[in-house]
C-alpha cells in the first residue's frame, strides 16, 4: 500500500531513488583492533627488549598518523571507559565488541608489561610527546596535588556515563579536533593551550587529566614485567636523574633518615584513624558534586527548562520543552525520570566520593612510610615507558656497544658524550667529598 500514488506522468519520468553512502564497513573496525593489538605487541617488544627510543618514536608517529589523523580519534581506549560504564548502568545499551577490546587490550598490556600504550600508541599522548621542547621539573608536592585530578575526572566521567548523562571525556577531548582539522573555538583554544603548555610541562593531559591513564597506572603498579632504566645493575651514576621529562624516575632513598621512625609511624597511625572521616567527607562532597553535575543530563535539563518556563522564563526556539510538548509525553513521567537520574548520580557520587577520600587517605598514609630504595628506577605507576632514559645509562651504552658493530652511529656518538659527562660528574662528586 503506497500512501501517495505516483503522479500520472506521461513523459516517462522515472522517480529517482534516494542516494545513500554506506557507513564505513564493519571490517575496518576489526582492522583497527588488529592494528591496536599489533602495535601493543611491537611497542612492548621495543620497550622491554629492544630498548631504543628511535623505534618507539617511529611507532608513535605511525600510530599518530593512523589512529590520530587517519581514523580521526574515534573510537579510542580513553573514551571506551564510558561505553563500558554506560553498559553497566543501562541494560538497554550493549557495548560493541570492538569497543570492549579497545578498552581491555591496553589495560591487559599494562597489567603485564607496563604502560606501553601511553608510550607510543595513544594518539593523544603522541601529539603531546612530539611538542616537548624544554621540560621543567615539577616539584613533588605539585605533582601529588595535580595527580588527584585524573582520578576525580575518571570518577565524574564514569558516573555520568553510568547514569546515561553523556560522555564527558569525549566532549572535552582536547586533541580530537586537531586530528579532524575541525573544532569549535573553545576546544581549539583548550587543545592549543595544552600543547603550548606541553612544550614546558611534558604531556600535561596524560599526567594531570587523562582518566584512562589512572586505570593504566593502577594496572601498571602491579605489572609483571616493567621498564627499567638500566639493562642490568645500577651503578648509581645519577646520569638518568634528569632524563625523564615526566619526573617518573625515583632516586635512591638517602642514607640517613630525615625524620625519626617513631614520629613517622605515629603520623601514619593518625592518618589511618582519620580514614573514615576522610571517606565520609569524600562521600558528602561526591554526592553534592554529582547532584549538581546531573544538570548536564538532557532529562534533567528538560525538567529545569520546564521549571524555568513555569516561573515565566521563556525558552528559546528549538528548546527541549518545545519538543517535549510535541511528543505528548507526560510531564510526571519526565520528572520521575529526571529525579531517577539525580538520585542515581547522588548515590553513585556518595560511593565514589567515599572511595576518593579513602584513596587520598591511603596515599597520605603511604607518604609517611619511608620506602627504602637503593637504585634509580622508574615509578611503576607513573612511568609512561617512553624510553628516553635508556640512552642516559652507561650500562645501557655498554650493552649496545657489545651487541653492535664498531660503526660510528648516532647512538655511539651519544654514548661517548655521556660517558664523558659521567666522568665529569663523578669527578665533581669525588672532589667534593
Amino acid at each position, binding site marked *: 500500500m503506497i500512501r501517495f500514488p505516483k503522479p500520472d506522468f506521461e513523459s516517462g519520468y522515472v522517480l529517482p531513488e534516494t542516494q545513500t553512502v*554506506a557507513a564505513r564497513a564493519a571490517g575496518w573496525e576489526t582492522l583497527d583492533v588488529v592494528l591496536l593489538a599489533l602495535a601493543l605487541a611491537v611497542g612492548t617488544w621495543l620497550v622491554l627488549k629492544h630498548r631504543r627510543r628511535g623505534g618507539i618514536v617511529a611507532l608513535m608517529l605511525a600510530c599518530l598518523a593512523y589512529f590520530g589523523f587517519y581514523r580521526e580519534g574515534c573510537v579510542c581506549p580513553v573514551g571506551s571507559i564510558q561505553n563500558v560504564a554506560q553498559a553497566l548502568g543501562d*541494560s538497554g545499551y550493549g557495548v560493541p565488541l570492538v569497543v570492549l577490546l579497545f578498552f581491555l587490550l591496553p589495560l591487559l598490556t599494562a597489567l603485564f608489561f607496563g604502560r606501553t600504550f601511553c608510550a607510543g600508541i595513544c594518539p593523544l599522548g603522541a601529539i603531546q610527546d612530539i611538542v616537548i621542547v624544554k621540560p621543567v621539573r615539577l616539584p613533588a608536592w605539585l605533582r601529588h596535588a595535580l595527580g588527584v585530578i585524573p582520578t576525580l575526572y575518571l570518577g565524574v566521567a564514569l558516573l555520568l556515563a553510568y547514569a546515561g548523562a553523556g560522555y564527558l571525556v569525549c566532549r572535552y577531548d582536547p586533541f580530537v579536533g586537531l586530528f579532524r582539522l575541525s573544532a569549535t573555538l573553545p576546544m581549539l583554544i583548550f587543545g592549543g593551550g595544552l600543547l603550548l603548555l606541553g612544550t614546558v610541562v611534558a604531556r600535561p593531559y596524560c599526567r594531570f587529566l587523562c582518566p584512562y591513564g589512572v586505570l593504566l597506572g593502577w594496572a601498571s*603498579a602491579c605489572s609483571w614485567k616493567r621498564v627499567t632504566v638500566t639493562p642490568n645493575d645500577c651503578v648509581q651514576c645519577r646520569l638518568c636523574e634528569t632524563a625523564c621529562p615526566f619526573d617518573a624516575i625515583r632516586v635512591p632513598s638517602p642514607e640517613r633518615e630525615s625524620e625519626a621512625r617513631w614520629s613517622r609511624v605515629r603520623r601514619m597511625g593518625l592518618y589511618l584513624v582519620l580514614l573514615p572521616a576522610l571517606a565520609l567527607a569524600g562521600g558528602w562532597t561526591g554526592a553534592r558534586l554529582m547532584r549538581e553535575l546531573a544538570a548536564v543530563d538532557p532529562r534533567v535539563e528538560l525538567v529545569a527548562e520546564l521549571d524555568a518556563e513555569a516561573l515565566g522564563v521563556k525558552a528559546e526556539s528549538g528548546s527541549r520543552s518545545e519538543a517535549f510538548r510535541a511528543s505528548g509525553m507526560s510531564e510526571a513521567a519526565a520528572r520521575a525520570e529526571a529525579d531517577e537520574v539525580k538520585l542515581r548520580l547522588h548515590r553513585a557520587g556518595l560511593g565514589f566520593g567515599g572511595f576518593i577520600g579513602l584513596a587520598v587517605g591511603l596515599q597520605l598514609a603511604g607518604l609517611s612510610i619511608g620506602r627504602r630504595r637503593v637504585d634509580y628506577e622508574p615509578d611503576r605507576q607513573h612511568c609512561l615507558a617512553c624510553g628516553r632514559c635508556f640512552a642516559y645509562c652507561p650500562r645501557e651504552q655498554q650493552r649496545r656497544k657489545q651487541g653492535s658493530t664498531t660503526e660510528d652511529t648516532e647512538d655511539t656518538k651519544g654514548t661517548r658524550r655521556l660517558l664523558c659527562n659521567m666522568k665529569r660528574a663523578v669527578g665533581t662528586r669525588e672532589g667534593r667529598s
Partner: protein
Amino acid sequence: MTDNDQKQTSRREMLRLVGRVGVLGCLASLAGMLTGRLRAGCIEAGPACKGCPDQDGCDLVTPPTVWQLDPAKCTQCGQCATDCVLAQSAVRCFHTHALCGHCKLCFGYFEPGARVLSSAAENQLCPTGAIQRRFVEDPYYTYTIEKDLCIGCAKCVHGCGMFGNGSLYLQVDHELCKNCNECSIARRCPANAFERVPVSEAYLLKGQGEEEGH
C-alpha cells in the same frame, strides 16, 4: 641488610601478584558480564536487536553501530546545522521522491508568501540554494538536494512537513559522519531523535513500504 632488602622485595612482589590477580579478575568479570549478557539473549531494544522480530536472530555481540536520526521525532529546530563537530554538518537533507507531491508550489523550496514561482534568491527558502527545481511535465516539478551545498538546517524539512507530505527529511550522511563516540548533535537534540543503529542499516529513510497515518 641485604637480607632485609630481599625480604622487602619479595614482600612487594607478593603484594603485586595479589594486585595483578585482583585487577585481572576485575577485568575478566567485567568482560564476562558485558558479553555474557549479550549471550544470554538480546538486550532489550538495543542495536543488536534492530530489525529482527524475535530474539533468535540476534547477534551474540553488539555489532558496530553508527549514529542516525529518526525523522519521525525530528522537530526541525535547526541545531543540526550548528552543533556538529564538523564545520560542515554531517546531517543533510534527504528526499524520498516516492512521497513527493511534485508540487509546482513547493513549500520546501519557496519562501512562504513567495509571489513569483521562480528560482530567484528572494523566493528560495534554502539559505544555501541547495535544492534544485526542475520541470517534469505540467503540472509537476521535481526537487533534488545538492548534497555538497546542504548544511542540514532543516528549513525545507519544516516547510515540507508542515504543508506537504514530508518527503524531505534529515539524515546523518555517513559520507561525512565521523561516528563520534558521543555525537554532539545527539547530546543537544531537543527531541532525542538521535540513536545508534547497526552499521548494516545505517539509514532511516522515509517511505520504506510502511503506510503512515495522518
